[in-house]
């Protein structure tokens, strides 16, 4: 496990066009982490990156992605024209020959995880603040400060498979239960036409989504990684309060919605709904009962009435708590079945690019760190995952590491399936058969291209 706080050397955002004249270089730096770096050092770092990026542009139309020096690795990401986000990590180096780098590689954050961190950071920023270019120049410094400081501090990145393949965990439900959720959403949207339900999450698993895939992932990550853990902590601390709040409450804004003043505190977000063509600005309202969380959007041009929210609260509370308890029964049942099925120590990861569904065997989940994947294995999976082209629409690759790990990567029809097997005396055929067996057992009802 690698703690980002100790490993991120710096994280900054710049735009060269903001201070074109000499002496105004600092204006180009929209945000710089960590804080204590002197302005001169900042200028130097940013200057280096500007130069590299500019230099690289003469060779390729593709923007520059990374720079590696003997001690540092720079990852660049240009989300909007002229805006560059840069993440810098230190790499352990020895004065040995370059071949030794392979051995120490595991200790560094995987580059694709670093790059994903930048992408997620930008998407999260865009969700709450909108695009960089839409923010007036006089506000952009404070906006970035306000957003990225807590974000980067709270980010607890590890070399974990779930950081490598960022997906959404869907909660399996039986039809009746799922329809209950759907019908509740319908009833709410019909009764309160201004409200649109964009997601329904139980614990940290998604049941319903009404957003375009990318925005869904961002909102899901916000809920599961930021908002809900805080809520759960609050609920555990104030046990008695939680019991009294059994019928649910608004958890965004954090203090709930009680008076019309609270309406001014509503969070605004930029989102694209699943069947829409463009992003719009909405108020984001999040409601929670027991373990069920519902997110709603309201168009920002709507006049808000506190009465509507009170009535919604009274309406949704009992409904949601009934459904939440039904779901919890289902979950208990399902957990039992899964426990039986996953009794073996198979290690697999499933990911569907279309709906971002992510599923891994119990032995790979974060709850069991003892069996976490070795960095080399992770790095191989990262390579297969990142390099979509070589496997094409369908394909399979089996890689054996020197220490008897067999890593199989399958892609088929926008899906990815990885199996990790540690088996000293196996041959390729045995591994292929075993993978096929696991695939058939775990992925029932899914079409995989034949191999």
């Amino acid at each position, binding site marked *: 496990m690698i703690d980002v706080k100790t490993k991120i050397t710096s994280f900054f955002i710049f735009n060269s066009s903001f201070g074109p004249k000499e002496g105004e270089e600092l204006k180009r730096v929209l945000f710089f982490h960590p804080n204590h770096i002197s302005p001169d050092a900042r200028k130097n770092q940013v200057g280096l990156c500007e130069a590299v990026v500019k230099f690289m542009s003469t060779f390729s139309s593709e923007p520059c992605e990374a720079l590696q020096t003997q001690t540092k690795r720079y990852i660049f990401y240009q989300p909007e024209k002229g805006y560059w986000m840069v993440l810098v990590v230190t790499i352990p180096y020895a004065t040995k020959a370059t071949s030794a780098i392979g051995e120490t590689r595991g200790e560094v954050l995987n580059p694709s995880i670093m790059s994903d961190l930048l992408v997620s950071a930008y998407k999260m920023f865009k969700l709450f603040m909108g695009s960089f270019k839409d923010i007036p120049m006089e506000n952009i410094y404070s906006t970035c400060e306000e957003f990225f400081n807590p974000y980067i501090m709270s980010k607890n990145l590890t070399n974990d498979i779930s950081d490598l393949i960022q997906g959404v965990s869907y909660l399996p439900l039986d039809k009746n239960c799922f329809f209950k959720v759907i019908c509740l959403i319908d009833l709410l949207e019909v009764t309160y036409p201004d409200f649109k339900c964009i997601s329904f999450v139980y614990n940290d698993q998604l049941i319903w989504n009404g957003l375009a895939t990318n925005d869904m992932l961002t909102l899901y990550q916000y809920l599961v990684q930021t908002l809900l853990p805080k809520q759960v902590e609050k609920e555990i601390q104030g046990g008695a309060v939680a019991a009294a709040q059994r019928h649910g409450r608004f958890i965004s804004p954090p203090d709930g919605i009680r008076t019309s003043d609270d309406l001014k505190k509503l969070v605004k977000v930029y989102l694209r709904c699943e069947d829409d063509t463009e992003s719009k600005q909405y108020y984001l309202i999040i409601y929670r009962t027991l373990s069920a969380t519902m997110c709603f959007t309201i168009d920002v041009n709507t006049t808000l009435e506190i009465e509507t929210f009170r009535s919604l609260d009274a309406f949704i509370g009992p409904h949601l708590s009934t459904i939440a308890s039904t779901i919890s029964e289902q979950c208990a049942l399902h957990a039992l079945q899964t426990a039986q099925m996953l009794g073996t120590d198979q290690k697999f990861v499933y990911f569907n690019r279309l709906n971002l569904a992510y599923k891994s065997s119990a032995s790979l989940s974060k709850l069991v760190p003892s069996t976490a994947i070795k960095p080399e294995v992770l790095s191989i999976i990262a390579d297969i995952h990142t390099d979509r082209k070589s496997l094409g629409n369908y394909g399979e690759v089996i890689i054996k590491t020197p220490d008897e790990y067999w890593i199989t990567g399958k892609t088929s*029809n926008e899906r990815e399936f990885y199996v990790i097997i540690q088996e000293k005396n196996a041959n390729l055929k045995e591994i292929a058969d075993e993978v096929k067996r696991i695939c058939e057992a775990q992925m029932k009802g899914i079409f995989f291209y034949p191999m």
Partner: protein
Amino acid sequence: MAKFSLDDSEEYYIKLSDQPKRFDADSPVTNVFFDDTNGQVFTVRSGGVTGVTVIGMDNSKNTSFRMEDRGPIISIKFSPDHKILAIQRNHESQNPVIEFVNFKDLAPTNVEYSHTCKWKNAKLVGFVWPKANEIAFVTDHGIELLQVLPEKKQLKSLKSTSFSGAWFSWCALSNIVLLAGNNGALLQPFLLNNSSITKLQKLELDAARPVVERDVFLLRLCDATWCAVFRHGVTTNVTAPGPTEVWLLLVSGTVSHSTHILKTGLVGRFAVNVVDDLVVVHHQSSQTSLLFDIAETVGTDGHVGQVSHAPLLPPAPLRPARVPDLCPMYSSNWVVFQPDYIIDARLGCLWRVTLVPSALAHNIPKDDIPRIVAVLLRRSDSEDTIYRILVQLVENTDSYLVELTKVFDEINSVYKQWAECEMARSVAGVGGNAGTEVGSRTPVVVSQTDFCTRVLHARAHMPRLVQVVAAYAASLWRQGLVVQQPVAEACVRVLVSHGRGGRLRALVRRRCLPDSRPLACQLLALGELQLALDMMARLQRTADIVEVLLGWDEPVAAAGVSRSSGGVPVPVPARKLLAAARPRPPHTFLALYHALQLQPVTSAPGEQCDIYDEYYKQLTSEQTS
């Protein structure tokens, strides 16, 4: 309380038949008799000398004839086949005698005869025709069942049973006679069937509160025979008697509750009819009628086998009738007969009482919609009304989504029962016990196909149809029914046309729409390739998958699928595979060609593959050279 009112519905849910049968009004020289077995009115002018006219609902059985006046008539009835007329007269002698006249083509023949009951001193209370050639004399000594032999002008006694009864009630639909003994404290039913008399379980009433003739009726309701008894002033408070209740006591039949109590909440004179398995209680002083449905599920009130019912709807008057001008309703000249006849002897009108199904949904509280739909589902002539209600709810989903959901549940629970019945019947075999099913009523069944064609199709662009189909499909699953193809198709169409592709994908992924080939093809057409291929794989439509893959120019995968799936190789013409591989790099073609050669049975290069064989040779020679 929000109200719902079905468009174009009227306020009167009970009406009299539009064209009453007219007959000569009761007068000093004209006597009017009614035979409730055949539903015929007999008007006897001057004792029959100036003519007898017989009028019934069935015009083909109407007739008129003359006969001699041999004394005042008490009762006059045709046998069910209209070949024998039986007349009971008030003779001085008071002998239990009935006269018979043989009829041919509804005209009297000269063959006349009479028969005296076996108990010579008995008082004849009446007679009934249980069968075409059988007549039962009901006397204060008992019942005698006789066979009429019209050719021989004789009657042959079949069976008799002794019972001391003062009056009786007759149900022609079930051939049951109910005799009242012990001054109305004991009611004894007899079944006249198979040329025999069967004594049924007697009904014991409170001895302190005997019943009188006008308060007792035999009713046929929900495939069972009931004795309806008016219990007036149940609270036994003399100064302020409580409201009247109608007690329905089971006489014969299998039901879950043997006693139903209909709470009228009113006091006064009542009459009762049965319309479409509903009990209609007419109340004279308020000039209103009440509807009760004993099939309605209500909580029992503590007593085993006993349930209480409130009226389905608030009391409402009968729709005013015209003959041709407005005529007095609930008149004191009215006589009510079972099951659904009303006679106004003064006006000379015979009506039947009928239900106006659409009026049941007139101005009712919103919450009552599902209940009323449940009631309508048990009626025989309400299909149209149910669809109208559905359509109106669907068109106003914004206000009625909750009610619509419950209505779907009612509809689908009936549909499920029906489907299970059908299933059981088909399992039992065609010839099995189909005969027993004929008698039982089939309720209104709104099948999935009907719902799609009659409700959804014309309204594909209603803004809330997405919610409607979700509620409908949810209800089907809740009832444990499988969503059928038409509904699945409608779901897809609605979701796609309303731009709700996301929901469609979610439903398919969670298997909320059942797998089927048409659905898979629809998904394919919509570009949902992943979902479509998954579904085909689940359906084991290997041939389809092969076609799809060939269409995507992926011959190798297609060959793989044809070989590997499900163990059974699917023959795919090698020609197709090779044709698809031809434009690909040579190694692809070669690999495929070799693979096909290894599988000579299913798809070896062969028929119509000459050009590919040549191409193969060309490639291999290039390689070797």
